[in-house]
């Protein structure tokens, strides 16, 4: 075997002069194998460290100029070199919240139906079909949103909302096509498969004894879900929702194409807005000054930190349920 790398140290020969050659080369082979794998595994943390470093140094200029006030001020004027990201952060949070408000009830309904009520033959196919939504590229959602969803919303759904819920400031004002609400709706469709599949997995992990106990006490099947299944799965479902939030915060293309791209904070959901990801997507290749680049990199850095925190929270919650369920099954 000739796989010995030049880097591997020579075999110590103290009192072992007669080790068969095959065993020696085997040790070399194993070492080379481990070395290659270690490089691959170590490359991932190194790259992430490099990513953080690059984002940090890239945003130094804007950080020293604007400091933390960057995230609380609202003026975004590349010509005057004045940058404040508050409208972007506001828009990111608002569009994601709209998305969750629509997607969470729907995906929970689907997940509960598929684990508790649906005929067995339907369960896997329906889950796979909805999972297909996750495979559609973001830019295709954007295309569909521009030419199909937005016209429909502008002609029917938005006027209807203004007529019925117009007493709320959220649904007042002129109706543009591209708007915060349009972006929220497309985000809801995109986030739904993720929330659905994770909460479905969490619900599947609930032990059957929970359901049987509730049913044996005379509960209807829906009451069994509410009293025995959902409380057991609660923090896992919260984890699924937060995971969906993480997806929604970072979505770029579809939102860029539908949100209207205006650095403004409006009370009305019919008004255009902006998100962090959309601002980066639109302005990065057109930025002219170092400070503009730096400000956009700063936005990317903030977005990165926010999504990492949100995702870590979600993992923690899901992990707690997984641990809880295994502890529960051991106790039984």
């Amino acid at each position: 075997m000739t796989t010995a790398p030049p880097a591997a140290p020579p075999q110590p020969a103290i009192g072992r002069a007669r080790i068969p050659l095959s065993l020696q080369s085997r040790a070399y082979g194993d070492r080379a194998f481990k070395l290659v794998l270690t490089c691959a595994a170590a490359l991932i943390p190194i790259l992430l460290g490099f990513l953080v470093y690059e984002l940090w140094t890239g945003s130094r200029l804007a950080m020293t100029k604007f400091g933390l006030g960057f995230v609380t001020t609202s003026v975004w004027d590349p010509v005057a070199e004045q940058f404040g990201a508050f409208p972007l952060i506001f828009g990111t949070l608002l569009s994601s919240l709209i998305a969750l408000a629509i997607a969470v009830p729907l995906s929970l309904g689907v997940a509960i139906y598929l684990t508790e009520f649906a005929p067995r033959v339907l369960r896997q196919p329906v889950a796979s079909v909805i999972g297909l939504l996750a495979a559609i590229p973001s830019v295709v959602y954007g295309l569909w949103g521009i030419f199909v969803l937005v016209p429909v919303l502008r002609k029917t759904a938005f006027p209807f909302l203004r007529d019925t819920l117009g007493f709320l400031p959220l649904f007042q004002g002129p109706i543009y096509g591209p708007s915060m609400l349009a972006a929220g709706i497309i985000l809801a469709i995109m986030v739904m498969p993720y929330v659905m599949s994770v909460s479905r997995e969490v619900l599947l992990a609930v032990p059957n004894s929970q359901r049987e106990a509730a049913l044996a006490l005379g509960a209807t099947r829906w009451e069994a879900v509410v009293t025995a299944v959902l409380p057991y799965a609660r923090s896992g479902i919260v984890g699924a929702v937060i995971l969906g939030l993480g997806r929604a915060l970072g979505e770029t293309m579809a939102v860029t194409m539908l949100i209207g791209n205006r650095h403004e904070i409006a009370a009305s959901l019919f008004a255009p807005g902006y998100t962090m990801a959309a601002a980066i997507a639109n302005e990065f290749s057109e930025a002219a000054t170092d400070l503009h680049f730096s400000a956009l990199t700063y936005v990317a850095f903030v977005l990165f930190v926010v999504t990492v925190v949100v995702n870590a929270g979600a993992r923690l919650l899901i992990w707690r349920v997984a641990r809880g369920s295994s502890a529960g099954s051991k106790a039984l």
Partner: protein
Amino acid sequence: MNRRLMRRLASNVMVGLMVVAVVLAVLPLFFILLDLLVKGASSLSWDFFTKMPVPAGETGGGVANAIVGTLIIVGTASLIGIPVGVGAGIYCAEYPHGRLTWLSRFVADVLNGTPSIVVGVFAWTWIVARQKHFSALAGSVALALLMVPMVMRTTEEMIKLVPNSLREAALALGYPRWRTSLSVIVRTTLPGIVTGTLLAVARIAGETAPLLFTALGSQYLSFKINQPMAALPLTVFTYATGPYEEWHRFAWAAALVLILVVLLLGVGARLAIGRSAVVND
């Protein structure tokens, strides 16, 4: 008795609402696919796949440069991403209790949740800003970085499914550890790893955000990996947001091609895992 009826009624109403939720969840998929077929298929022609784009305002032409560009960019990303992902996955499965294993799993989770646009900014500051011109290679690196966590986790999960007795049998027959890993463990799980890899390729093939300011897009057919290059997702974005009717038609057609590629990769992945199920029996 009345109360019992009410409770059963409430239960049935909730089930009804859930069925409505299922319908609402499936409808968008149905409409998106239908619209893509209706609006995209009519613009598909031989020219669409073989001709270059024509100047704005003129009719005719195609997106051959974008199709070639996507193949090159995604191919390069796979060449970088798959070995690293598979290698790291094998490492995590072979040495499950090491500190590096814990670290790379954790970092892979972080990367998996990182927005693709942030990875794009990273590729820009790392490669584009340093060499002062846009480059498809920077786009490939960004896509590879998005792909690695997915490939790594599936590889690890698949290897973990292999019963330990198989490993013990190989070792007992005198196989060295590396041969046990490669020609027994990895070979057994190969269909699963191929599936995970194909799904990862499908995911990155449709990514647009990391390419916006790395590969940038181009009107010309280019094979130079270190220069701006066209890509199908970029074409969809530019044409969809442009002002011309002709561009919109092309955007639908390009999106249809893109979704067909993604779905075909998905079907390929299913076929591979179907074969692995046979192997496992």
